[in-house]
């Protein structure tokens, strides 16, 4: 099923904005996480966890879901297909992985933020930050972005429409 050009461009614009926004928000989350990790002040650690919870649920999760859905729409609604080309398939798997880990991890962030609210100042400092998840997430999203820009050659052979797709 091919999307009409106007709808395709609108979906592409939405996909680029949400994907790039996702990466930007992940960098903002990482900056706050580093602040929580290195700070020796309980108020900074407490504020950082509140900010991580807010950025995560209010910005990263919606953008991640939007990027995933628009990516799915762009692949299924164009001749690229979802499993026809290696780069699309790998980008889809990596995006699904990143979004899955994000959705599984955010309740932990909420729990830790709740913990920070109830802890004494001495304990709050020991909470540290949440650096690994955003760092790995950014790495995955950058790989996906590079794949989307370079579109390296190679077809999977998993569909019947490969020859037709190449002819387009």
């Amino acid at each position, binding site marked *: 099923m091919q999307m009409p050009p106007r709808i395709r461009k609108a979906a592409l614009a939405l996909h680029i904005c949400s994907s790039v926004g996702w990466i930007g928000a992940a960098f903002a989350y990482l900056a706050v996480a580093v602040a929580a990790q290195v700070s020796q002040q309980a108020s900074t650690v407490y504020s950082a966890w509140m900010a991580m919870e807010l950025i995560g649920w209010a910005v990263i999760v919606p953008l991640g879901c939007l990027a995933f859905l628009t990516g799915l729409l762009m692949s299924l609604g164009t001749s*690229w297909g979802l499993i026809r080309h290696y780069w699309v398939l790998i980008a889809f798997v990596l995006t699904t992985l990143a979004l899955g880990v994000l959705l599984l991890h955010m309740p932990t962030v909420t729990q830790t933020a709740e*913990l920070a609210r109830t802890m004494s100042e001495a304990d709050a400092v020991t*909470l540290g930050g949440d650096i690994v998840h955003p760092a790995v997430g950014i790495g995955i999203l950058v790989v996906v972005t590079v794949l989307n820009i370079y579109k390296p050659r190679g077809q999977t052979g998993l569909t019947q429409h490969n020859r037709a797709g190449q002819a387009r």
Partner: protein
Amino acid sequence: MNDVKSGAQPGPPGRSIRGLAGTPRWVKVFVVVAATVLLMMVVAMLITGGEHGPGRHLSAASIYERTAASTAATDTDLGGVC
């Protein structure tokens, strides 16, 4: 980002059906690197005790304090029966 119009697929023609031998080199390299990174992450998680939740943000001292406080409260509630 799947811009079909500006990104004409540069794939070689006539290679629609292929086995693993026909897989592009960049895909093979990618899979090896991804598997290595995944393995390293699993090993790192096992080495650090496999703790993967809010508990990993708590130091051993604070966990001990909380456990001790909780135990003391339970003992008080039960009148030292346990």
